[in-house]
């Protein structure tokens, strides 16, 4: 693996959008503005939106295009300090104690100092993100923060305010250059205002038809023009239906690649019904589209496409 070269931050909103486009992430102007501001002002970005609209992807693309290291902290219920910040290597510590004893070392302070040294410290994502890096400060992705609990949010407040962490046995670790922090949430619960206040907020919505088409073309290049138009048209139409969970961009891309694997050149009702499981993940939603409903929607989409030509 080659050494990443430090790259300068984008100098304007336009260049931010261009930078993302280089990695095939087609952001709209509002997202470009928020990202540019966050990079410039050194603020965390708080991205909220439905599942599958490309929130996590933003952090990955930022890391890739800026040549920074990506450090990911996946949140889950019960996430605690030993999994998020640091942990001592107990096995190694115990061996060190036994060895010290065997050597006749009985000075308690000395022993404690040796055992709680950086050698025995296992660094978890938050601590890693505070370390200096030759490629520039890393991108810290705190993914799906809504899955963890309020206690962890409160802890994050402190980290994000000063970019420092205290390890009682060692002292305080402070980042020389604060990392680029991206926080994502699926909004399965409200994140506390105190945390949001420290961040720049952006709601990542579903893209417009043109943008989605461009995304499909960029990400699944082997899909034909006609099919990609129909796929995007159908998904856009589907989002207007009364569904429990509308398909996200990730589903659109999955569907497009699934159809191209099946060597489909144009959509027909039978193919759509067979592959609906790629788009819709709730049985009730799939049941809603049974029978003639798929054909109806498909005819709508085809008529619209014909009218646009």
């Amino acid at each position, binding site marked *: 693996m080659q050494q990443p070269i430090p790259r300068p931050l984008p100098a304007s909103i336009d260049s931010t959008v261009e930078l993302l486009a280089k990695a095939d992430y087609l952001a709209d102007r509002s997202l470009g503005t928020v990202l540019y501001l966050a990079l410039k002002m050194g603020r965390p970005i708080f991205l909220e939106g439905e599942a599958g609209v490309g929130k996590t992807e933003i952090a990955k693309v930022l890391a890739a295009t800026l040549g920074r290291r990506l450090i990911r902290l996946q949140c889950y219920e019960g996430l605690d300090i030993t999994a998020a910040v640091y942990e001592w290597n107990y096995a190694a510590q115990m061996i060190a104690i036994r060895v010290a004893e065997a050597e006749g070392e009985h000075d*308690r302070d000395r*022993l404690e100092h040796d055992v709680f040294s950086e050698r025995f410290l296992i660094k978890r994502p938050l601590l890693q993100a505070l370390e200096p890096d030759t490629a520039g400060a890393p991108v810290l992705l705190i993914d799906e923060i809504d899955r963890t609990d309020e206690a962890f949010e409160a802890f994050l407040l402190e980290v994000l305010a000063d970019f420092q962490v205290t390890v009682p046995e060692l002292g305080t670790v402070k980042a020389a250059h604060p990392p680029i922090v991206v926080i994502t949430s699926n909004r399965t619960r409200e994140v506390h205002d105190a945390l949001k206040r420290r961040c720049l907020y952006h709601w990542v919505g579903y893209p417009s038809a043109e943008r989605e088409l461009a995304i499909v073309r960029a990400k699944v290049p082997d899909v034909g023009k006609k099919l990609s138009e129909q796929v995007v048209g159908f998904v856009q139409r589907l989002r207007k239906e009364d569904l429990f969970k509308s398909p996200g961009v990730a589903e659109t891309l999955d569907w497009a690649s699934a159809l191209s694997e099946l060597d489909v050149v144009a959509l027909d009702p039978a193919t759509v019904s067979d592959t609906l499981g790629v788009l819709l993940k709730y049985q009730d939603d799939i049941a809603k589209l049974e029978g003639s409903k798929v054909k109806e929607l498909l005819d709508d989409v085809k008529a619209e496409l014909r009218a646009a030509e």
Partner: protein
Amino acid sequence: MMSAMAEPSGRLAENILYFARALRAAGIPVGPGAVLDALEALQTAGVGTREDFYWTLHAVFVKRHEHSILFDQAFRIFFRRRGYVDQLIAMMLPQAPSAPQAPQPGATRIHEALYAGLDDKLKKEREVELDARMTVSDREVLQKKDFAQMTAAEIAAAKEAMRRLVLPLAEVRTRRLKPHPRGHLIDIRRTLRASMKGGGDFIDLRFIGPKTKPPPLVALLDISGSMSQYSRIFLHFLHALTDARRRVSTFLFGTRLTNVTRALRERDPDDALAACSAAVPDWSGGTRIAASLRAFNKLWARRVLTQGAVVLLITDGLERDADDTLAFEIDRLHRSCRRLVWLNPLLRFEGFEARARGIKAMLPHVDEFRPIHNLESMAGLVAALTQGANHVGDRAASPKAWMQKVA
């Protein structure tokens, strides 16, 4: 630093300040820090177009998705004048300070004339809208509710009752661990530290065990006509509950669903009930349980029912147009929460039979069914909820027992 930055754009700072005030009036919580952030952001972004100006302010001021629409409205109204934003943008560009412009003669009068007319027109439009809304459904009675103020004795009694309250499924295990004298895991960190004190000769084991905490509670309260005599006591109860516990969300429904969680966070019960009353347009109207549950399932379930939430459904179950959708929606609700408790104040008679269609449709899908025999006070309500709360499978609460009476 601030003064150096604010100087060339004094007017800008002032305008942002007023805009922040307008946002606050519109209901978006904007702190004083946000104004400084906004100024910094505008300077940083080097804004060139109206769109960039919009999104830069949006990034700083909006912290919730539902506030986006309020922001949009406020932005449009505040920066209504064409070219106004351009002027502001021009102000931020580096340039020689120009002499202060003298106000053009008659400007104030023109402004007054322009806006007075506009305001009247807007008002008229709003009235027309209101009229239209009243005709949407003839069964939907839109009215505000007046609650009698609470006496000090009532408040004291409520607090007393809350202390005795034990809800069904009061504590759930979390996946977090805490020091515990009889825990099931060895806490290596504390063990090692403790052993250090003795020089490492003895290993003094310390344990950790699961931590428990009350699960989130979601209350869905029916405020239709048939329930109207109880709505005060329930709201009072929910206010006390919101005050005593964390993670309580409250929704009211009659013909439509309203989230009143924020209103109930007011410390004073009278203020809270007044705020609730102001937020809800459909007091004592008809009931559309299925439609309300559907709205809840679609818009809120995924946001408030995480981490093992307990749902307290308070309704008499008298659905006007009962059909299959009610069973479907209550089933979905049941499947998305940890425990669904139905509290029914109407069933006060021993010889009750679940005859109404709505009740029959809902009973199979609830975990616990709690009729309240005498709902005169908070104490009575608390007793009904506490009764048998700790042993699951309590016969009186089992919906099956009630279903058998129907057969």
